[in-house]
């Protein structure tokens, strides 16, 4: 019952929020919440550390930006097509990397993401160092004008809720159960007659699709897509968000994403000092909150109630 009350509260807050808080900030949080969840699906539920996750985010930003700018496609189609394209890229990356685990997987994904980075730097449609600028916010279904921040917020909100629902479903599905088993003991899963790499490929496909949706939305929110979106910096940020919030919890990385976006927003006024403060926070988390914010809260307050 409290769960439904909590959902209802969230729904009310989500609807009222853009009238109180700057919508761009809210949309940034939503994009990164989806992105962090996609990363969590891999690291938290399949045990796969993807070091180049920004390639799906950044490439999708370019794709959706290009479609919004140069085609007549409506905004939701641009988002969906970019996400599907990234799912395909994720599948391809999976074919190459899924046989490996641990640090090898991390290094292969990093290498592929660097390759994609330079490919897009050279590609004719990305605008090189300038990136894609002045991306328009095409009408929803080709009819409804969503060029205002508040209108776009609701589009992004609906897509984000659907993405998180899909993430929740994947984790709590027959597939998710086998995936978690692979995370715990891959050899054992194989000895039970499964081929683990197939599950890892599907996990990477789904995760890349979700990350792609996040990137596609981001391009419409900021109306710009640049190489920064697929840089290693973004890949690193998403790892930080996940660890800060709490690996292996569903909500942890979402909370971590929101906290980092808010922190960056607050710290922007301090210029260079922002990075130093961020580093200090990261250190503090590693030293004192090893399970992450949500992980620690869960461990301290929820366990006695369970037993």
């Amino acid at each position, binding site marked *: 019952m409290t769960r439904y009350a909590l959902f209802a509260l969230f729904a009310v807050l989500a609807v009222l929020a853009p009238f109180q808080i700057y919508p761009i900030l809210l949309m940034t949080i939503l994009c990164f919440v989806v992105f962090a969840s996609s990363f969590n699906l891999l690291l938290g539920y399949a045990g796969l550390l993807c070091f180049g996750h920004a390639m799906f985010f950044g490439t999708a930003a370019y794709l959706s930006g290009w479609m919004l700018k140069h085609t007549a496609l409506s905004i939701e189609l641009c988002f969906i097509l970019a996400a599907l394209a990234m799912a395909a890229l994720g599948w391809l990356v999976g074919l190459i990397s899924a046989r490996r685990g641990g640090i090898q997987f991390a290094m292969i994904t990093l290498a592929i993401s660097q390759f994609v980075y330079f490919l897009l730097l050279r590609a004719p449609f990305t605008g090189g160092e300038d990136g894609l600028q002045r991306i328009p916010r095409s009408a929803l279904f080709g009819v409804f004008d969503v060029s205002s921040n508040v209108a776009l917020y609701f589009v992004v909100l609906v897509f984000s809720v659907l993405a998180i629902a899909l993430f929740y479903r994947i984790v709590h599905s027959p597939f998710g159960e086998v995936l978690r088993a692979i995370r715990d003991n891959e050899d054992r*899963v194989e*000895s*039970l007659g499964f081929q683990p790499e197939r599950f890892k490929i599907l996990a990477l496909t789904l995760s890349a699709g979700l990350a792609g949706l996040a990137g596609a939305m981001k391009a419409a929110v900021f109306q710009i897509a640049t190489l920064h979106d697929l840089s290693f910096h973004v890949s690193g940020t998403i790892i930080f968000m996940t660890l800060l919030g709490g690996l*292996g919890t569903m909500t942890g990385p979402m909370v971590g994403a929101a906290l980092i976006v808010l922190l960056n927003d607050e710290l922007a006024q301090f210029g260079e000092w922002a990075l130093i403060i961020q580093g200090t926070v990261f250190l503090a988390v590693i030293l004192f909150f090893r399970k992450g914010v949500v992980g620690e809260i869960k461990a301290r307050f929820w366990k006695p109630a369970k037993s």
Partner: protein
Amino acid sequence: MSTPTDYALEARGLTKSFGGFHAVKDVNLKVRRGAIHALIGPNGAGKTTCFNLLTKTLTPTSGQVLLDGQDITGLRSAQVARLGLVRSFQISATFPHLTCLENIRVALQSSQGTAFRFWRSLGSIKALNEPARALLAQVGLAGQEDTLATELSYGKKRALEIATTLALDPKVMLLDEPTAGMGHEDIAPITDLIRAVSAGRTILIVEHNLSVVSSLCERITVLQHGEVLTEGTYDEVSNDPEVITAYMGGVDDE
């Protein structure tokens, strides 16, 4: 002469070399259907290597492995599992952060074709909960459905692992030192459990504990330096002077 299919599992001239070193050399092994067969030998005799060859975890340098007379040498361990040959591991191979019920359900999904359904809820495989509970009860874990595997005692982890293996209803079970690292009080229940689940199955067991071997196994193969030293019943083997030398004198050789 008996037909080859009297034997559930057979190794022919199995050899595994690492560089110039023969970890396992020309091992011939026949495990009769329905038997509990032990593979013993002093430390470094090649038992685990041999075991890994039989379960396809390692690929043999030469030789063949046959399951029910069918050559499975070229198959992967997942394929072998689907043919009914399932192994356990020396270190308890549970899924620590899954509940006991989930541990079993993963194995049950192996024959269901549900495992890729990422769009369905767990409710869609509710039908597996009943058999999973029954398997847990069979190994003495009734009531522990929602306990995380990591929270179980060592002996109970073993029991959970055996239940997980049973979920595949294997024709042949390969158990790698099922009582390794176990306290005295845990050994008897596991021995009883292995005897209970052996009905209608073939079991090959690698074991250090000779009292477990003597109480469980009809047939024993002794390995030394990667080769078969002798094979027979417990009484035959334990009175063999070569075996006694291998065990007693093994300290000097190694």
